[in-house]
């Protein structure tokens, strides 16, 4: 099963007490996402990137995760101008269908894109620097309901199981000369892929069951215990205050209060 190993451990952001970290990042997000103008949002993104760089979060990891944005962001930028009425920048005419692209729409698209980027960046900083076990433990300490956490935890494990199984199966099929990239229109390719997906769910289900059995066998009763007990220092709290304050400052700046 695949959990990411912590990278660059040792930097302050990795050592930051997970509970304070989660709380502070949460406050930061809640406030800075209220911003409706581009400049404050850019500042907000910049702050998170700075935090990541100072905390020696692997840059590659950061870019890899943010690259998800390009896909969604592209859609936002393409469709929003047409959905929001306002000053026309250009018009598209496809026979009887016509659509106007508006400047306001474009602006809204960019704002949404930036909000998405800030959220992803914060999430990346958290995930890369904390590790799943501690995140769950911290959330538990922060009084998030246990049932919700268990469900999330198993979803995560299930996801890793799924990707592992998929990798094995694709390798096995390639070994027998199957080329998935040939053409999706090819009936044989389509058939093979649909079988692959069907098998994937069955196999993951079966494996999930075996993993669960193995956990039961070692005395698992639905409760997770860890040895890491958190004891936040003054510096943890200071960093928390700093990050929260940055979020609030961006919020105030956006509202024109600063």
């Amino acid at each position: 099963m695949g959990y990411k190993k912590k990278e660059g451990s040792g930097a302050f952001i990795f050592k930051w007490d997970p509970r304070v970290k989660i709380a502070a990042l949460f406050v930061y997000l809640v406030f800075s996402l209220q911003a409706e103008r581009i400049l404050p949002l850019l500042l907000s993104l910049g702050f998170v990137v700075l935090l990541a760089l100072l905390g020696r979060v692997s840059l590659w990891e950061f870019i890899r995760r943010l690259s998800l944005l390009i896909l969604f962001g592209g859609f936002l930028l393409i469709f929003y101008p047409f959905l929001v009425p306002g000053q026309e920048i250009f018009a598209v005419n496809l026979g009887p269908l016509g659509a106007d692209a508006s400047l306001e729409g474009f602006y809204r698209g960019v704002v949404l894109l930036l909000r998405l980027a800030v959220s992803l960046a914060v999430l990346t900083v958290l995930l890369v620097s904390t590790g799943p076990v501690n995140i769950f433990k911290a959330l538990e300490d922060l009084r998030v309901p246990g049932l919700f956490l268990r469900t999330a935890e198993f979803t995560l494990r299930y996801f890793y199981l799924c990707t592992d199984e998929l990798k094995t199966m694709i390798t096995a099929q390639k070994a027998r000369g199957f080329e998935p990239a040939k053409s999706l229109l090819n009936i044989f390719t389509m058939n093979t892929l649909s079988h692959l997906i069907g098998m994937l769910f069955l196999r993951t289900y079966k494996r999930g069951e075996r993993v669960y059995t193995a956990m039961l066998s070692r005395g698992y009763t639905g409760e997770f215990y860890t040895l890491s007990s958190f004891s936040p220092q003054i510096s943890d709290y200071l960093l928390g205050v700093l990050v929260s304050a940055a979020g609030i400052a961006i919020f105030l700046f956006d509202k024109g209060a600063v």
Partner: protein
Amino acid sequence: MPYEKYAVEIKNLFYTYPGGVEALKGLSVRVPLNSKTALLGPNGAGKTTLIFHLNGIFLPQKGEVYVLGQEVSRKTEKELKTKVGLVFQDPDDQLFAPTVWEDAAFGPLNMGLKRDEVEKRVEEALKQVGAYELKDRPPYMLSYGEKKRAAIAGVLAMDPEIIVLDEPWAFLDPLGQEQIGDILTRLHEKGKTIILATHDVDFAAQWADWVIVIRDGMLVAEGEPSLLTEEGVVFRGGLRYPLITRLFKEAKLMEGDKLPYTLDQGIEIIRKLLEEGLRQN
């Protein structure tokens, strides 16, 4: 009443899987305390199903299972999980934590042990199987042999009295097999009862001091490993003779019921034959 000399005593056990496959059909077996027991049987014989009954993953649908004199039931199941450690056939089913260390700590933590005790046990267990250097590695990035050893450590850290391994050789290279074999020998010397499900008759003959042969969910024979030289047992159990036994049987070097089944016995016999031959010339 259960027999105190037995680590495991199973009486007339039945188990049917949802879907209707009858995996165990009135199985009765015994495992002596502090034995090295080999559980033999062809694919689908019911070995894994049997093993799942030993610490209450499966509860008897019909029949009784006694472990260390205690009947396996919903009441005793929790306690038995600390007394019987199962090492699964596929280590990927067993290793799930982010690091080898955390995985080995999973069982002890579930037992509610104190921090110091957990740390001590995990360290000891990892050292016992030679996996201490791997402690910070994520299990999914290990080689098969390393995974297997990490999985065994996860069970040893709970310090069970009975250790059960399901087909531990699968996919291991000869060196890996030898390493696991040595680990098991050391555990046995410490007073543990070891049960090992396998198809490998040669290993069973060489290693075990108690052999159980099952097939189709029923007992074929149980007793000393010399059972494996008996035609009836080998035939009904769907097995083959150990190589040493086959060598002497086919070369017609021996008559009667004293066929050897371990390397040492074979060597002894050959030495005697040679000496006799020399004396006659």
